[in-house]
């Protein structure tokens, strides 16, 4: 593409800006900030509503609460990414442009992935900032879950990075499914409901470990990273379970994104054929 028409990077940036400026991002982050302030600054709020992990508020927030807020934000932004275009006819308009369909679709998917990484980073940074503002140390050098005797031990600093990576992976996996459904539906409620359904099913499989492998390879474990550091029901070691979970979700995400592209190509081919016949 020539610079005159706008580069591919411009397209991604435009899509990313649209996602970041979406009012849902602001609403969800505001609610999260208020909740986090309540947790860090009010002891009575903390005692009434919070279950503290490892005596560490930052660990508690990034494992038990932040992923849920991020899930909501990502879901609300990813669900309409293609479905709303179909509804208002924007998709057909894009088809009339030379690079409209494929480049735009690719840019939208990449922007959604960047958005997921950015909003997760924002969530972690906001929590850390509130933690420091309330004079609650992050204890980066101490050992995470020192008293719990976990199978995999690491320092708090490493554990926070591990949590970040796992939450991003979990959210990207959700995004990949939601984006695929969004590209095949003209009603935004369908991808949204699918995202909620996936979360609910994974939660049920986590709470009722009927099939052991589905307890180990579970989205909910990625969104609650501390659960991956001990106990495996199917594998003989925790590290194997962790590796299997990570590999499985990377493969699923890649496959779903490829399917989304395939759907786009199929649609282009169909339209080309129908225009030739007319």
């Amino acid at each position, binding site marked *: 593409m020539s610079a005159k028409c706008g580069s591919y990077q411009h397209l991604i940036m435009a899509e990313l800006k649209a996602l970041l400026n979406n009012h849902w991002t602001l609403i969800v982050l505001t609610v999260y900030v208020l909740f986090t302030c309540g947790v860090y600054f009010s002891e009575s709020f903390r005692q*009434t509503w919070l279950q503290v992990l490892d005596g560490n508020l930052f660990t508690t927030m990034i494992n038990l609460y932040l992923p849920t807020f991020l899930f909501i934000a990502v879901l609300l932004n990813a669900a309409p990414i293609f479905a709303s275009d179909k*509804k208002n006819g924007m998709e057909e308009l894009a088809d009339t442009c030379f690079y409209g369909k494929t480049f735009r679709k690719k840019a939208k998917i990449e922007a959604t992935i960047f958005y997921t990484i950015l909003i997760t980073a924002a969530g972690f940074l906001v929590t850390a900032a509130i933690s420091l503002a309330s004079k609650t140390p992050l204890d980066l050098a101490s050992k995470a879950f020192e008293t719990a005797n976990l199978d995999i031990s690491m320092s708090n600093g490493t554990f926070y990075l591990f949590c970040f990576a796992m939450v991003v992976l979990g959210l990207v996996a959700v995004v990949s499914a939601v984006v695929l459904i969004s590209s095949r539906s003209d009603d*935004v*409620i369908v991808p*949204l*409901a699918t995202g*909620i*359904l996936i979360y609910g099913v994974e939660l*049920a499989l986590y709470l009722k470990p009927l099939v052991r492998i589905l307890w180990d390879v579970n989205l909910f474990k990625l969104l609650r990273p501390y659960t991956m550091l001990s106990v495996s029901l199917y594998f003989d070691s925790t590290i194997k379970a962790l590796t299997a979970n990570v590999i499985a979700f990377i493969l699923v995400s890649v496959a779903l994104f490829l399917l989304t592209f395939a759907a786009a190509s199929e649609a282009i081919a169909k339209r080309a054929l129908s225009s030739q016949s007319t």
Partner: protein
Amino acid sequence: MNLIGAEFKKIVSKKYVWILALLLALFYAYLILNLADNFSVVYSKRALQPVFQEIMDAAYDPQVQEYVIKNEFNVTFDELQPLISPRIAQTLEQYQGKIYKGYDVEKQLKDEAALRIESLVERNVTLNKMIQELKNEPDTPLNRYLLQQYTHMPKMEPNLTRWDDWIDINHSMLPLLIGFVILLGTSGVYSNEYSSKMHGTLLTTKNGRSKLFWSKLVASCLFAALCAVMFQSFAALLYMHVYGLPFKDTPINSLTSFYRMPNTMWALQFYLCQLAGSLLGAIVLTAVTLCISSFCRSNLVSFFISGIYFATGALYSLNVEGQYISSMRTIFADVSTFSLMSLTNVLGNGKVFIVGNSAIPTIRLTLITQAVIFAVALLLTYVFYNRKEITA
């Protein structure tokens, strides 16, 4: 009737509602059917049902009671055998040498029989102790209520009837599934009209929008009722397949989940109340969703806000269960739409809310609150939907 039919058709013709409902139903069936080969499902209660009466008689036998109390509620089947009906041992003998999934069936069943007798004795001792304590306690509304309930409880029975499993149907998962499908089907009832600009066009028609309001309401409520009936029937079929029908009715205080709860109901009566609660809750949820849909231009927003309303009540309610007193902190959970659809927390636990000198059963507050929510939701929907109505 034509208008109602057309509106109903509009809701049920959304393919995605049925696809997602089917996926949910399949997943639910998968979870329940997975329990079918558990030892407790195949043997524990099923094998002991023929000697239900003998186990009950043993638990109320003064000699057995004295022995169990003397041994601090920790006895074995062999210790009890000389004191109880020989029919119990004869019935269990047929499982001699049988191994199921690594369990020695006869031994497990003997342990289970001893546990049932021991637990029933312990429960009766605890109940009598609580009644005595309450008689000596100060005369407060809560104590009066508890004394009244505990002294009027039906005679406790061994927990062998399967009613605990049947009552568990509506504990959490099924109300959530029903709620989810209702939200899917009804969140776009008004929002879709706004986004397609149909609401403006309707003003040019003879009857405007007001007649449509009632048709949409009736059609949506019909859809909600249909969802509740379908999911309840499906769950009942699954439970019938896995656990079988309870062979007799039993007082609810005989079930482990409601141990020590001041509830004088019978299990069948409670299950029927749960079915009615599920239906009523589904209709209230529909009214709330319609109200939210009537001021949202996008069904995504409507679905999300309605979902937050229902999920908040559900999460809160599931977190505060297990008590029989409603406090200012728990009352919002107790009167939620989810609580009405489940009833386990509010009615099952016999919850009361203390106001001044009286103890009000929380279920009454739940019903009143939900009736008010229903009425207010309808009123607001009418106002929002007809606010641009042209009168001739």
